[in-house]
């Protein structure tokens, strides 16, 4: 029998656990920071006009003028990568915010109130969950004649059920605890119970699911661009570049590798940050410093 103050749970044990993150966290923070800066300033930082065509040097390899070479229309890959950061990142951020807010509200309502309300919410969630995501996206975007923001909207619709389920489970775990009942016997209103008592205790899950939703949306939106849905043809976008330049793999591999690497590095960095933040928040919630 281990008392709750037992040594395995004490602060020093957590300290050794933090050590395993090593330099990973600073690196991931740096990568995420760079991506955010590029999303804001990318267009201005680009050394050349990303849409300027130079048909005299198509599909050229890296040079002092074009650091990552050019594509088949002679456009500068480096400038297109920088400029494309915004469309790669902003949509997923908006999608993740939408999914998290809606998912949290539904999860709190369903998990806390239970009964009929929960049944209705969760059956709708199951219904959406059961739809084949890619088919729905292709059909809906085709129906509404495309557009980047339409794609973001459809992503929110399709990703919300997963988050709702996760957050409902987190709320359910809190709902039965004596601190909730104690607050109830004091006369705390349901709304306050939900938002002041239960919500802070599911915050670590909320933050992590937000970051993971972002990664999911980043990859999904790029996949849509790759398929030609979402951003219009010709615009600088990582997914689009992957699709348009895959024929240049032998002439200028950077035209394909650069956008692919950007996607991978961004997704990995944010996923690691999500895990790390979860641990941090969980520790902060249950320790005094």
């Amino acid at each position, binding site marked *: *029998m*281990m*008392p*709750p*103050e*037992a*040594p*395995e749970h*004490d602060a*020093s*044990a957590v*300290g*050794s656990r933090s050590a395993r993150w090593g330099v990973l966290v600073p690196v991931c923070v740096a990568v995420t920071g760079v991506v955010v800066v590029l999303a804001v300033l990318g267009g201005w930082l680009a050394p050349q006009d990303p849409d300027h065509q130079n048909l005299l040097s198509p599909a050229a390899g890296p040079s002092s003028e074009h650091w990552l070479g050019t594509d088949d229309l002679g456009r500068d890959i480096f400038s297109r990568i920088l400029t494309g950061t915004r469309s790669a990142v902003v949509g997923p951020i908006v999608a993740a915010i939408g999914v998290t807010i809606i998912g949290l509200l539904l999860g709190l309502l369903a998990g806390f109130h239970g009964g009929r309300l929960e049944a209705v919410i969760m059956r709708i969630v199951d219904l959406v969950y059961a739809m084949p995501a890619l088919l729905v996206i292709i059909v809906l975007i085709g129906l509404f004649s495309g557009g980047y923001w339409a794609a973001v909207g459809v992503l929110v619709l399709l990703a919300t059920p997963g988050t709702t389920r996760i957050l409902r489970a987190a709320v359910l775990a809190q709902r039965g*605890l*004596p*601190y909730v*009942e*104690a*607050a*109830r*016997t*004091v*006369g*705390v209103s349901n709304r306050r119970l939900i938002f002041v*008592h239960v919500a*802070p*205790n599911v*915050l670590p899950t909320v933050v992590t699911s937000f970051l993971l939703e972002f990664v999911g949306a980043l990859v999904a939106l790029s996949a849509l661009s790759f398929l030609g849905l979402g951003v219009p043809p010709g615009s600088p976008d990582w997914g689009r570049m992957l699709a348009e330049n895959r024929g240049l793999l032998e002439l200028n591999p950077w035209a394909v590798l650069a956008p692919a690497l950007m996607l991978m590095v961004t997704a990995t960095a944010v996923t690691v940050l999500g895990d790390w933040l979860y641990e941090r928040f969980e520790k902060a*919630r*249950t*320790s*005094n410093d």
Partner: protein
Amino acid sequence: MPDVDPRQRADRLLDVEGLTVTHVGSGRLLVDGIGFHVERGESVALVGESGSGKSLTARALMALLPRGLAARGRVRFDGNEVSAHGERQMMSLRGQHLGLLMQDPFTMLNPLTTAGTHLAETLRSTTEGASLDRSALDADIARRLEEVGVVDPAVPDKYPFELSGGMRQRIALATALAKDPELLIADEPTAALDTTTQREVLRLLRRVQREREMGLLLITHDLAVAFSLCERIMVMKAGRIVEVADPATLRSSARDPYTTRLLAADLSFSDARREPAARSVDAPPLLEVRNLSKDFPRPRRLRRAAAQGASALADVSITVTEGRSLGLVGESGSGKSTLARCILGLETPTSGSIRLDGLELGRYGSLAKAELRQARGAVQCVFQDPYSTLNPAHSISFILTEAIRHRETDELSREEEEQEVLELLDQVGLPATFAGRRPVALSGGQRQRVAIARSLAMKPRLLICDEALSALDVSVRAQVLDVLEAVQARGVTLLFITHDLAVARKVTDDLVVLYRGKVVEAGTTAEVLDNAQHDHTRSLLAAVPTGEPAWLGGR
């Protein structure tokens, strides 16, 4: 440790010298170089409060320490050095020579395996067991179950969830004994059991130990249990053994101040309430529960079973007079907590009425807002588990201020609120610095005090304590008990729910005994405890550990 003849020393069953357990990360010593021994056929208890290192000692002996902890020292078993053994030798030592019985019989048994399979698995892993055919194995299983008092032939085919706690602990004991160990280490074997079941299991443990002439190392926080079962008691505190003596010596002349404190904190059953209630039984009632019943709806496929089973509460009537604290005792599952939850409005009763302070509380949902506020203010509750009763996300002052704000119809100024938080902390004996802390920084006893302070913030007339002391160490329990007595002195009436009759005698004036959802006995505490009429009350009384070997029968 006095000098002993080396030959005698070599003959000891278990001989431990300089055993230390360290936390590898911080280098903190959790068990600080202890030495002790167990003779063949001897029963020894290792007694201490949570965090004293008693469980870690047992785990170190079995080489089953949690990750991040390292053990060092000399352990001789049957004259052979075992501390140098690797995992492989340790595995042969475990089971063959050392049996382990743990606290929670449910997590100890694999939920997907029947009781018989559990035993068969262990029996088969011995050399003799491997050669047994099916029928011989079944016969051996039956014989071993009989030894632990299980004669029902259906039991070997049952899964752990189909068995009661006491039955599970018997199966676990049979499994621990399957390889006929010479030493059984029992780590809080009865802490998760009801008091009546506790006595049966302890009796069984002693009988088996004597019949097999097996060594027993009992690890417990309960002095009375240790006294009645063991020949030698080792008291452990902060990783050290502070005193070793036989029960009689320890009781009459404990040398170490810590032991004396433990003994003093362990309530004697004869301690009655210090200040008996002034009011007589005829005073107007504060709480009147009449013919209260509560059934829990079951899933459809279980309905038929439910129709035969008892409901949680059946036709319960109790009366609490203002100023006279009422105790509610009974085994787990007797409906004590359900009754409390109905009074608090956390459950809606199926039928019957609850009148508190002139309000009908049978249907909380239909109360008007002002009435609801009045009801919330009149009755408050302290729950059992100190570790989940406070919201970990908020500070102590936030928790207390919230209660104060819900009591007052008019808004108080910030200074007034802060002042009251400090007063509340003072009332439960906590310093003002606690206001800014979060629950995680508090020990179990401190959290329970904050929970009491939160209840007091509502200025209740009735305070329900639902097993509020049972998760606490004995010395902490005594302190919290003092706080509750001070609360009583301030005019708050207690409805005290407990399975511990010694505590009930100490804080209550009247007593109600519940058994399977029905009131089987009621009266003043002294009447009920000194002149029990109902069989169930008698068996509850018999289950209170006396600290005498006679309590477990025999010598």
